[in-house]
């Protein structure tokens, strides 16, 4: 792993959602195991891409990091402080350091408020600076995301999706955070606009030394954006490593299948895998042993009995698969 002190480190982070049926609490409680025992590190200034199919728990994991969702167990160390056990007051201070950008830029700005009001809200909450200083900061950030200062007095509906997402980026930067969780930030945008927003995020990272968790189901975007990549399946990290390793030498059969599903503009290239068979199993009742075994073309007896651990297969590359481990 990276030698530097990580900015964020999770240890056995787990989230279980109880399914509360409407009515009397009779019978066995059912639980959605959204995120199960996730331990990973994100170094300062780095982008960790988190990929997986929809519903695999990647957004839940990201929202736990910014404490929009409380974790069930495990800890989140931010600069060595465990966030999972912070008091409400300390948590508020932490909120200045971590921010989130959402998927849908049409839904994440209050339609009743001017862009200026939305940008100023974080500073108003923390009572930072004088009103004039706050406006100045908002104007400066708008400029940084290449929007005119006149946008301050306009309403979100006057802007396009890409412009709105840049407004959201500016809002996330208002408190000078160190870490930003990007939750599918480009999947609601047109392809032509995606590149613009992603490059914006990369530029800002270079300029401000930001650390990103980049959650997406789009492997191409993640490749462009990330330094390291983690692959999630049914709430567990099944492979993590340097971007080059993951994309050029994937270890886990699931990662291979995901990569094979990315269309490549080369008719002569044959696919190693055909597309994945079957549905993702329910996180209420995940398969025993390896969670991927029900869809894995290489599954063997041991896969149903023993849950594979993440094991290093190279420098900064770990895979949770029995078959890969037996190779090395």
């Amino acid at each position: 792993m990276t030698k530097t002190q990580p900015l964020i480190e999770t240890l056995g982070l787990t989230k279980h959602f109880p399914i509360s049926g409407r009515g009397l609490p009779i019978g066995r409680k059912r639980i959605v195991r959204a995120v199960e025992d996730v331990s990973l590190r994100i170094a300062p200034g780095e982008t960790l891409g988190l990929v997986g199919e929809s519903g695999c728990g990647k957004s839940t994991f990201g929202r736990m990091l910014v404490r929009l969702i409380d974790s069930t167990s495990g800890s989140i160390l931010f600069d060595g402080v465990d966030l999972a056990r912070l008091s409400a007051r300390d948590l508020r201070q932490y909120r200045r350091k971590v921010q989130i950008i959402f998927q849908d830029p049409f839904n994440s700005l209050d339609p009743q408020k001017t862009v200026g009001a939305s940008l100023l809200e974080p500073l108003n909450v923390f009572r930072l600076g004088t009103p004039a200083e706050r406006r100045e900061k908002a104007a400066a950030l708008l400029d940084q995301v290449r929007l005119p200062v006149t946008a301050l007095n306009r309403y979100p509906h006057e802007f396009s999706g890409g412009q709105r997402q840049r407004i959201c980026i500016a809002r996330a930067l208002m408190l000078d955070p160190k870490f930003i969780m990007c939750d599918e930030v480009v999947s609601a945008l047109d392809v032509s606009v995606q590149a613009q927003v992603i490059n914006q995020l990369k530029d800002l990272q270079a300029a401000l030394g930001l650390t990103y968790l980049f959650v997406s189901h789009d492997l191409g975007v993640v490749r462009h954006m990330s330094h390291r990549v983690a692959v999630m399946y049914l709430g567990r990290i099944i492979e993590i490593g340097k971007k080059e390793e993951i994309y050029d030498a994937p270890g886990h059969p699931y990662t291979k299948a995901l990569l094979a599903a990315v269309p490549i503009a080369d008719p002569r290239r044959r696919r190693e895998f055909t597309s994945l068979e079957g549905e993702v199993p329910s996180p209420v009742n995940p398969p025993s042993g390896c969670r991927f075994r029900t869809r894995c073309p290489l599954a063997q007896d041991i896969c149903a009995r023993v849950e594979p651990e993440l094991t290093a297969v190279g420098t900064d590359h770990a895979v949770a698969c029995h078959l890969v481990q037996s190779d090395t």
Partner: protein
Amino acid sequence: MLSVLKKLPLSGKIGVGILTVLLMAAIFGPMVLHDPYAQNLIHSLEGPSAEHWLGTDQIGRDLLSRIVVGARYSLLIGIGATLFGAVIGVAIGVFSGYFGGWLEMAMMRLMEMLMVFPGILIALMVIAVAGDGLVNVIVAVGLRAVPIFARLAQTSTHTIREREYILAAKAVGASGFRILYSHVLPALFNSLVVLAALQVATSILVGATLSFLGVGISPEMPEWGSMLNTGRRYIFQHWPLVVFPGLAIMITVLGINLLGDGLRAMLSKQHGRGVVLK
């Protein structure tokens, strides 16, 4: 204010016109008209004349000035009761809708219990317990509107709290109260205004019904409902005693309903800005 008026559809403009005339009459009318309490038994039960435009009642009081002064009571009850119901109902609805949990469960069941009873029964109960008087009537009539506002506020808050901009506000450290007043309430505003306008009309009707039944404000006072009740006894001898107070109620309620419908039509056209709820 003027720009709102311009955007209103015709029906809404008519409503505003009716209400403006009514308000003007209620405010300035008593200054120029006869004393609504002055009796003159010699001129009792007279028809419309140059001196008494709508005639006189059974003890010779000027009917027009009584109706004009009655407008004050009706509007006071209508607006007061609606404000009472809106403030309490919206507070209950927004809190329970946003924070959810057992609080929401308990509050909403309580609201449903209130809704089960017809408004007039609730009002009668309150007056039976608290006694009569203008303030008690306002509370009694307003209580009926509480669950109506609470329900609208709760269901709308439910949809709004799932929006990502609420999450974004949480992520920048905004407290629950801050989110409620700076994000949830403004989003509710449009639909609340429409509901409130229509509730003023209903409250006036319930208020008039109460005094028609002889409860509520003192029968001495020129309230339209109690004027109807008195006039009822003379219905075959002197029709103006029931027709004019009845018309007054009808025109007022019509004016408010026209305004309410106009507002609804106008606000639902304003796309882009604001959440417009049915």
